[in-house]
């Protein structure tokens, strides 16, 4: 398909097909397809499956109904992130976790290590391929391939069904900020599934999308990327992810540390910013208070749809209120910016 490929955590991945800007726009305005088979899947089964999920994750999985999913953090005993993930409740004794590609084996080992509940934990990455269909026309495109009524599957719910003759887990989730679906299925059907969706998507203006657009879309939508906004040194309070950190649910890895930090307050917090000039702040650039370095950019770049230059940075709490002017060192030049609320982009309902 003429994709520009790169090595991403051991996977041969497409960075772009027709160009990052074109792919980004296709997802915001029409529909884009992402081959995200590199993502990992871990299945937890057994009478105490929920206990294990609760113990290793920050969000409250007990609130999930069958067919429902939630964004969560996989936690270390220090209250920091092993990974971020989606937890899907398939039944009272079966949970399906979607984790980041590069972290799959580490996540599996971590969950297995902390499995004091006798639950069955499977590193299932090899059994699943995944395609994401994202954009305002995503439902229209996918509906052509399945008798499962897609409209009633609301955001962060999922169903099982036949898509183009293939058994799939069909989830109304995504990493772009648009409406859309992520479908999981057995790898031998990958090529057929991709080609069918690309062909049927032509009249809808479908674009094949690579990792480049995946990154610009998620950044614009204010979504974290492991290794950037979150890692094993950051807590949910610092990362502005309090909404997935339910300390009231009961005991879980890192909860004590998190309760203490909640009381004492954080020394740094993640904030969204917007550049005030044409200069672009990049990952790792320093945030300045005068000439002093007080923080750093976790992700930065152009926002193609908003036509601004944006990013996330860790800053001292006193500099984190929206509207606060900050400065970022752009290769020796002091570039003015200001803190803005995230997400930068929110789709029309």
């Amino acid at each position, binding site marked *: 398909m003429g994709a*520009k490929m790169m090595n991403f955590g051991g996977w041969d991945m497409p*960075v*772009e097909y027709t*160009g*990052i*800007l*074109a792919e980004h726009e296709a997802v915001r305005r029409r529909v884009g397809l992402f081959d995200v088979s590199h993502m990992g899947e871990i299945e937890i089964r057994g009478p105490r499956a929920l206990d294990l999920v609760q113990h290793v994750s920050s969000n409250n999985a007990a609130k999930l109904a069958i067919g429902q999913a939630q964004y969560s953090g996989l936690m270390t005993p220090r209250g920091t992130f092993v990974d971020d993930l989606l937890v899907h409740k398939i039944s009272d004794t079966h949970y399906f976790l979607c984790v980041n590609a590069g972290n799959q084996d580490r996540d599996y080992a971590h969950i297995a290590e902390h499995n004091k509940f006798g639950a069955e934990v499977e590193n299932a990455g090899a059994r699943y391929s995944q395609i994401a269909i994202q954009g305002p026309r995503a439902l229209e495109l996918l509906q052509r391939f399945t008798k499962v009524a897609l409209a009633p599957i609301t955001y962060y719910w999922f169903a099982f069904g036949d898509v183009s003759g293939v058994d799939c887990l069909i989830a109304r989730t995504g990493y772009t900020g648009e409406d859309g679906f992520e479908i999981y299925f057995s790898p031998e059907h990958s090529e057929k599934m991709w080609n069918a969706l690309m062909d049927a998507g032509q009249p809808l203006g479908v674009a094949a999308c690579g990792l*480049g657009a995946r*990154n*610009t879309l998620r950044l614009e939508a204010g979504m974290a990327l492991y290794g950037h906004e979150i890692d094993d040194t950051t807590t949910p309070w610092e990362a502005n992810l309090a909404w997935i950190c339910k300390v009231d649910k009961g005991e879980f890895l890192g909860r004590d540390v998190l309760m203490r930090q909640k009381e004492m307050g954080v020394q740094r917090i993640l904030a969204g910013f917007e550049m005030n000039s*044409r*200069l*672009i702040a*990049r990952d790792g650039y320093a945030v300045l208070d005068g000439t002093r370095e007080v923080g750093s950019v976790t992700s930065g*770049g*152009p926002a*193609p749809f908003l036509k601004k230059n944006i990013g996330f940075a860790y800053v001292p709490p006193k500099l984190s209120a929206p509207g606060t002017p900050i400065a970022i060192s752009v*290769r020796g030049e002091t570039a003015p910016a200001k803190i803005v609320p995230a997400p930068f982009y929110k789709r029309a309902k």
Partner: protein
Amino acid sequence: MYPADFRYTKDHEWIQVSGSTGTVGITDYAQHALGDVVFVQLPQTGAKLKAGAVLGTVESVKAVSEVFSPVSGEVTEVNSDLTDAPEKINQDPHRSAWLVKLKIENPKDVAALMDAKAYQEYVAEKEKEQTA
């Protein structure tokens, strides 16, 4: 594909010489490797550059790429079109998306650069390496 009257560097800059003036840009190979260009930083007129010194930067969505001066010289003109339309570098890298014009200090610098045929071979080798 690569104009016969240009000279080329290993870092994918081109220079077109007219008397003692050189027009400098980046090649089609470079713009394709970069992807969509979103921002260009160029020197001021009057800036004096040595061959191989950083002349400016071309930024794509994902990366910042330095541009190196093919020869020593003084910047006489800067392409201001690129401020509002950086994408011209992707669309027309060998003509309307020139970056700067230089007063060339030493014509011998130009002769040391690759001609179109040599550059074409150089690029073909690079492409082979990438798909290997």
